[in-house]
C-alpha cells in the first residue's frame, strides 16, 4: 500500500512502540536471570545487572537435573522428527501426486481431524497406552508421529507438492520410473524447503509440548524440560533469579532454531494460511 509521508512516519513510530512491547518480556527475562535477588527486588526496577550474576545459570541448571531433561527432550524431539518427516512426506505424496479413486474424500475426512479438540481423544488414548504397558515411557509421545506426523504437516506438504508441475512426473514415467523413484528422486529434492518447514514446526511443537509429557510421564528421571521447568517453579517459588535463568535456558534453543530457520517459518505459515 502506498502511504503518504506523515502517515508513514506515524506508522513507523507505532511499529517501534509495538516492537518494544513485544521485546520487553524478553528483556525482563534476561535482566532478571542475571541479577541477584536483592537487585531484582529493588523498586523502581533496574535494568542493568550489577554485577552480572552468571552463576544463576549454573545454580538453576544444577538444582534440578536439567542436563537429563535436556537429553530426554532431545530423544523425544528426534524420534518425533524422524517419524514425522518420513511419513508426512510419503502421505502427502499419496494425496497429491498419485491419482486414485476417493483420494480427495479421504483427504477431507483426515483433514477434518484438525478441528477435533485434543481433549476428546485424550482419555481413551491414555487408557490404550496404559493397557499396552507404555504408561511412563516415551512411546505414547513418539509413536504417533510415525503414523502420518499430524494432518497439519501433511496438509502443508500437499499444498507444496501441488505446485510442482506434473510434467516432471510424466517425464520420469516415460523413463520407466515408479512412484517410489518419483518420490525420492523428484518430489523430495524439490520440496526441501517445505520439508524444512515441517521439521522446524515439529521441533518447536515437540520441544514446547506440555500436556503430552504431563499426562504420559510419571517418573522424575523421564521428565522433559517443560515438565522440569514447571516442577522447578513449584519448588523454588519466588526465587525469580533462578526461575528466570532456568526459563532463559529453556527458551534459548528455540530462539536459536527460529533465528537460523526463520525464512522457512514465515514461508510455512503463509503456505498454510493462504491457499486453504
Amino acid at each position, binding site marked *: 500500500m502506498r502511504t503518504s509521508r506523515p502517515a508513514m512516519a506515524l506508522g513507523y513510530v507505532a511499529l517501534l512502540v509495538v516492537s518494544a512491547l513485544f521485546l*520487553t518480556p524478553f528483556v525482563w527475562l534476561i535482566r532478571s536471570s542475571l541479577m541477584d535477588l536483592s537487585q531484582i527486588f529493588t523498586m523502581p526496577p533496574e535494568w542493568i545487572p550489577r554485577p552480572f550474576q552468571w552463576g544463576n545459570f549454573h545454580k538453576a541448571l544444577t538444582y534440578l537435573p536439567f542436563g537429563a531433561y535436556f537429553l530426554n527432550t532431545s530423544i523425544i524431539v528426534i524420534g518425533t522428527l524422524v517419524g514425522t518427516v518420513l511419513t508426512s512426506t510419503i502421505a502427502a505424496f*499419496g494425496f497429491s501426486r498419485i*491419482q486414485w479413486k476417493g483420494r480427495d474424500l479421504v483427504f477431507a475426512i483426515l483433514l477434518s481431524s484438525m478441528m477435533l479438540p485434543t481433549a*476428546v481423544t485424550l482419555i481413551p488414548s491414555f487408557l490404550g497406552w496404559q493397557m499396552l504397558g507404555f504408561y511412563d515411557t516415551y512411546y505414547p509421545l513418539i509413536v504417533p508421529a510415525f503414523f*502420518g506426523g499430524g494432518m497439519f504437516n501433511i496438509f502443508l506438504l500437499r499444498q507444496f507438492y501441488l505446485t510442482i508441475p506434473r510434467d516432471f512426473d510424466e517425464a520420469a514415467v516415460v523413463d520407466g520410473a515408479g*512412484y517410489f523413484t518419483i518420490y525420492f528422486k523428484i518430489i523430495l529434492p524439490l520440496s526441501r524447503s517445505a520439508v524444512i518447514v515441517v521439521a522446524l514446526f515439529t521441533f518447536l511443537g515437540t520441544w514446547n509440548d*506440555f500436556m503430552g509429557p504431563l499426562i504420559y510421564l510419571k517418573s522424575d528421571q523421564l521428565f522433559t524440560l*517443560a515438565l522440569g*521447568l514447571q516442577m522447578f517453579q513449584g519448588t523454588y517459588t519466588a526465587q525469580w533469579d533462578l526461575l528466570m535463568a532456568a526459563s532463559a535456558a529453556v527458551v534459548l534453543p528455540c530462539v536459536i532454531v527460529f533465528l537460523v530457520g526463520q525464512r522457512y517459518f514465515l514461508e510455512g505459515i503463509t503456505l498454510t494460511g*493462504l491457499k486453504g
Partner: protein
Amino acid sequence: MRKGLFYGLLFTAPAIVGFLLFTLGPMIASLALSLTDYNVFKAQTAWVGLDNYIRLFGGEDELFYQSLGVTFYFVLLRVPAVIIISFAVALLLNMNVRGKSIFRTIIYLPSIVPAVASAMIWMWLLNPDLGLLNSALSAVGLPTSNWLYAENSVVPSVVLTTLWGIGGTVIIFLAGLSGIPKQYYEAIDVDGGGWYSKLRHITIPMVTPTIFFNTIMTIIGSFQVFNEAYILTEGGPNNRSLFYVFYLWRTGFRDTEMGYASALAWVLFVIILFFTYLTFRSSKSWVYYEGGGRS
C-alpha cells in the same frame, strides 16, 4: 499409471491407519466411555446411559457451569482481541518501511517461546508487588492491579499473556494483505480517497477470507486453553480461571473419573463444532471471495 489405487493407499496408509488408531478409534471409545462410570479406582464399570450428561447439565455439578462460563468469557475476550490487534499489527508491518523484516521477526519471536517459560515470564511481569507492569503503572500514576491473583482480573490477565503469542496470526494476515493487487489502491488514489477509504473499501473486504480463517482457528484454540490454567493460575482464585479443559483434566486424571471426563470432552466437542458451524454460516454474509463475489 496403472494401479493408482493400490499405490495411493500404500503411500497414504500410515496417515489413514494413524487416523483410525489415534483419532477415530479414541473418538468412538470416548463416546462409549462417556456412557459409563469408568473410574480407575473402581473395581466394576457399569453402563450408566446418559447419567453423566444428566449430572453435567442437571445443575449438580456447579463447577461444570463455572468452567463453561469462565471459558466463554475467555473466548469472548480473546478472539476479538487477537483478531483486531493482529490485524492492526499486520497493517503496520505491511507498510514498506525500512527494517520491515526485523520488525516481523520481533513480533513473531514470542510465539516460539515454550508455554511453560512464557507463563513463568508473565507470572513475574504481573507480580503484584514487584512485577514490571505494576511498577510501570504506579510510576505514571495509574492504578495497579492484582492481575492473576484477583477474581475479577484473572481471565483478562490470562488473555493478556496469550496476546504475546499472536505472531503466527499476524504473519497469516500479512500474507493476506500482500496478496491484494496494487491497482485497487491506485483506483482509490485516482478518486482522491485517503487511507481510510482504502482500508474500508479495499483492504478489509479483500482480507475477509483471512479474517475468517484466523477467527476459526482462534476460536478453536481459545476453547482449549489449558497450559495457562495449569501453570499460571491452577484454576484460581476461587475457580475464576477454571478453564474447561483444565477442569476436564482435573476430573479425568487427578480425580480419575474418566467416564465423567469423557462426557465433558464430548460436550466441548459439540460446543466447538457448533461455534465453527456458526462462523461458517455467518461467513456467507461477510466473507468476500475474489471471482465468486460473496459466496
